[in-house]
């Protein structure tokens, strides 16, 4: 089944109107003294847990806005973050 995402401008729209921009992972690390190991970890390494994660999306087939939303990869649906504690 296809699903809808909530664009902050246009409201709930079909997912195929959007482009996926990947997980939100904080600010880009400073280039100075950045090791290749750290660089590749930031650009490519991901932890895709089967629980809600914050993601970037681009409304390419609509208003053209970039926004973040929480979506659960286990269900594909938008879902608020779970309260979990990891130590």
């Amino acid at each position, binding site marked *: 089944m296809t699903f809808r995402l909530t664009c902050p401008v246009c409201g709930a729209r079909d997912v195929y109107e959007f482009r996926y921009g990947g997980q939100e992972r904080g600010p880009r690390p400073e280039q100075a003294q950045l090791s290749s190991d750290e660089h*590749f*970890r930031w650009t490519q390494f991901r*932890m895709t847990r089967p629980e809600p994660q914050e993601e970037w999306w681009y409304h390419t087939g609509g208003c053209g806005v970039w926004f973040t939303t929480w979506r659960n990869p286990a269900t594909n649906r938008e879902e608020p973050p779970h309260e979990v504690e990891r130590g």
Partner: protein
Amino acid sequence: MSSIDHSHTKFGRLWKTRPLKRHYDVVIIGGGIHGLATAYYLAKEHSIKDIAVLESQYIGFGGSGRNTAHVRANQRTQQNVKLYDEGLRLWPILTDELDFNLMFFNCGNLSLAHSEAAVSGFRLAINTATFSGVKSELLDPQQCKEVIPALDISDRPAHPIQAGMYHPPGGTIRHDALVWGLAKGADKHGASIHQGVEVQGIDVDGPRVTGVQTSHGPISCNKLAVMAGGYGASICTMLDIELPIHPLTIQAMVTQPLKPLLNCVLSSGAYHVYANQTLKGEIATGAHMDPQVNYTTDVTAHYFKHQAEALTDFMPCLEGVRFLRIWAGLADMTPDMAPILDGNVMFDGLYIDLGWGYFGFKSGPITGKYMAEFIAREEAPEILAPFALSRFLENRYMGETATTMKYGHWD
């Protein structure tokens, strides 16, 4: 004692259901072709019999039963071609060894190029294949039409056909037969297969994995192999392991049965289509991946429309043919379109066989053979060495994405 438990039926069961023990030498997570093949070769060639294959659903539930069963060895890089070529030559041997008809249909593969850049990509891949002793050749549009008369090679399609890459050694396999045959072989040599046992946690003691927590209680082991295909990245999050893997849904579908018209596997990067005609006469066709990471097997009408438009554009005779069925599986994509095969890197005793993307089917048994050697000897066989996880941190990406079959936004 007979190896068949259920002698009351004419043919009996292919494998036994054994009691689940609390300890095994090797625990393999994932009852697909990678896990089953690894268990088969560990038991058969390395005399490690104390093996449990844990499958949360039923064997072949994941990618092993959801692919389009295409096999080929015309990838871009030598390291990949070497592995896939050996894999291709394994099918007839396995059919004999497993005493099970895998229905290997050596019909060949034809990939289509619709741009100059794609033709150049084919030349690269063909040169790699030729250098590696694999048959692969460039065809002009007229020769493509001789292979598949239903192709429209005129200028009418949105992306006219400019050339073809013809790879006679490829073809298709019956994927269920492969799952069942490997399960039969693994069981015969002593490995035990446990369906419906879900891994819910992984136990570690310092730098070492020591076992798993499952829906059926804890199981300890000396070595743990994660071979769960698209679900593997999720299993690795139990150990807080980050990987350069994007699990994406990939959809495939079949039409109503037709008279024979497509006598080899056909693919087109520009149209995002790969198709073959099954032995039942259906056109089985696979699409591009959905873009967002997810662990579902959701299917969408979007791809019915996409596949219909694409196939009928360069094979107009398919207009009006109806799709009967659609399904989806997971492709665990890496940035360089090559898998991650490694052991003892993040934790001692932990082996991973992941990141195959949509190449996991054609590589299954041959990878199982070498992963078994890796696990038994605790040292990567030479053929698997290029696929170590460290390549991503050392900026040594494999060159698979240099081909025109390059799909996707992550590369």
